[in-house]
């Protein structure tokens, strides 16, 4: 049982408001995406982030703009939190040319080098496999940048997790491994997949540091990453931060969530990262209902604008299918095939 009220650690008001605002931005964005998906406006499938917003926002706010992140099949929140504009994220979900991946990536591959986010990798633990290279590049070039790698608890049973964390530890790479432990991997509860209670316990296999945080508490997540970041950038070695959290929605389209109990869902709802933060901010007289209403209103406008932008954007041209497979000019391998 975690303490519901959030200790604001007298962080300055501006920061607290921005953390709060971003948590709401992620929530409202995802809610909108879900509506649009149900209306059949978005192709493919989606994996929703509602419930876990405090993790993405806490982590990305604590990072420097020039730091990078890797993401997963559930990347919408990570993308918005790291600074991908709602316009280019929404356009990508619509499969438009103006999307952050020009319509080629889609929901599971959201990302944008311009804001320090690799295209999300939809192979479970795929980001864990690659992030060591991001960290190694920072180390070799001595840029003092840090890479944060998001993944779920289910990913920790993949071989890539073992190989990646071990190499990062022995090479002292500037990496923050962020495990969003939302208890389930698709329909499978974590405790059915391993005898180890906490993901954080597993770092002992690599001589790596770790910390467990309340993933429904944006301030706690922010503080943990903030504290870790600079030392890591300077070569103290990687850390794994396990954020205990919960996904309010199903795993992906058409998941009836029958594998979990109403009681469990209700309990986690009481920890909703928005409500908790709101209450704490009000208790501390840092916002009132008007400012809150204003914040929400601005966010709605941002989202509506993004939707209109996405809807009005053009689809890629058919010929675009044939570019971008290779960087170096190479007589298109598709010529012979036409």
């Amino acid at each position, binding site marked *: 049982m975690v303490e519901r009220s959030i200790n604001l650690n007298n962080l300055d008001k501006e920061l607290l408001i921005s953390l709060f605002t971003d948590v709401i931005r992620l929530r409202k964005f995802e809610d909108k995406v879900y509506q649009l998906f149900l209306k059949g406006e978005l192709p*493919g*499938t989606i994996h929703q982030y509602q419930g876990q917003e405090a993790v993405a926002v806490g982590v990305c706010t604590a990072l420097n703009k020039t730091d990078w992140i890797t993401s997963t099949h559930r990347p919408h929140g990570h993308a918005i939190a790291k600074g991908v504009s709602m316009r280019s994220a929404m356009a990508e979900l619509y499969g438009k040319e103006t999307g952050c991946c020009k319509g*080629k990536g*889609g929901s599971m591959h959201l990302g944008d080098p311009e804001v320090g986010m690799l295209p999300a990798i939809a192979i479970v633990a795929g980001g864990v496999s690659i992030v060591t290279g991001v960290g190694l590049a920072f180390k070799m070039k001595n840029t003092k940048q840090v890479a944060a790698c998001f993944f779920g608890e289910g990913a920790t049973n993949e071989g890539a997790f073992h190989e990646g964390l071990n190499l990062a530890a022995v090479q002292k790479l500037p990496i923050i491994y962020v495990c969003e432990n939302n208890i389930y*991997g698709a*329909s499978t509860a974590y405790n059915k*997949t391993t005898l180890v209670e906490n993901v954080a316990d597993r770092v002992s296999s690599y001589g790596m540091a770790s910390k467990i945080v309340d993933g429904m508490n944006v301030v706690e997540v922010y503080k943990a990453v903030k504290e870790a970041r600079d030392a890591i950038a300077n070569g103290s070695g990687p850390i794994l931060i396990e954020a205990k959290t919960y996904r309010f929605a199903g795993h992906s389209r058409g998941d009836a969530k029958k594998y979990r109990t109403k009681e469990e869902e209700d309990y986690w709802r009481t920890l909703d990262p928005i409500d908790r933060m709101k209450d704490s901010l009000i208790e501390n007289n840092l916002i009132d209902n008007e400012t809150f209403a204003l914040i929400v209103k601005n966010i709605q406008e941002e989202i509506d604008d993004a939707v209109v932008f996405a809807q009005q954007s053009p689809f*890629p041209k058919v010929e675009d299918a044939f570019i971008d497979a290779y960087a170096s000019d190479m007589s298109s391998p*598709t010529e012979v095939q036409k």
Partner: protein
Amino acid sequence: MTTRRIGIGEAIREAIAEEMQRDENVFLIGEDIGIPGGFGGAFGVYLGLPEKFGHERIIDTPISEKAIIGTSVGAALMGMRPIPDLQYSDFIFECMDEIVNQAAKMRYMSGGKLKVPLTLRCPVGTANRGAQHGQSPESYFIHVPGLKVVCPSDAYVAKGVMKSAIRDDDPVIVFEHKLLYGSKGRESAGGMDLTAEVPEEEYLFPIGKALKKRDGNSLTIISTHLTLYRCLAAAEDLKNEGIECEVIDPVSLLPLDTKTIYDSVNKTGKALIAHEDTFTGGWGAEVAALISQNCFSKLKAPVQRIAAYDVPLPVTPILEQTVVPSIERIKEKIIQLHKMELK
């Protein structure tokens, strides 16, 4: 013989249930396959089976593809008949060593003293999921001596060949197209009826036998999965223009029923291979090379291939439809081939 119409998903569920009933060594292992309240596998094929056979024989695993296939190989070597599941075929690259270096080679390395009877199911095909959830990687596996590769495209074949695979003493990979599971194909699949008359009685469809789906004398088309249905639709449309396509479903890519294929091409003198897997190094290349060599003197035109263009899969529909073979593209190719008369 009484029959009823069912879809591929149902047919495969029946095949697995019958074989689990018949042989206690048959079991399922994979991610999200038997969790109560769960999905019954990524495409619901296993729904109902845990109630019938219990969780000792339907083993839910961590997300550990190497362990899933490694465990299956070990169990098969000990006389079990595992049916591992990887959700999407795109994830097969996580356990290639267990498939290529272990499952396929163990028997030979042992001097024939051991066998590896496992049946791996792999859903393939695009569905607006992007580059990592829509591949059709079957072609890699025809290049692995020691494996067998089958691609059922209708419910009758699916049930029969799945049962043959489970009883086969060698490792068999069964590639199924995710848009063909339902009894009615999705829009994206042209919405055609995908059910087939399937006998109530038990039957097997042998691995290594091709099926002629349509007779014709103008040219021979060899295709599988969703592309096979697109070829059949194209063939139907072109009938009016006097083009009579013979359409063959190879079903099994390794071993390949070359006789059925050569007989047809020797008759028509022209061949077109069509698949959703990418072009270069695709299984169409092997079939084209074999036909070109073995039907050489009977060929009236060069063997043609249609496949997904050589790029990763884009997610947005307009680009995805551009990359994978469409009915339109298939028609053009057929007409072009029909016109060719180089000797």
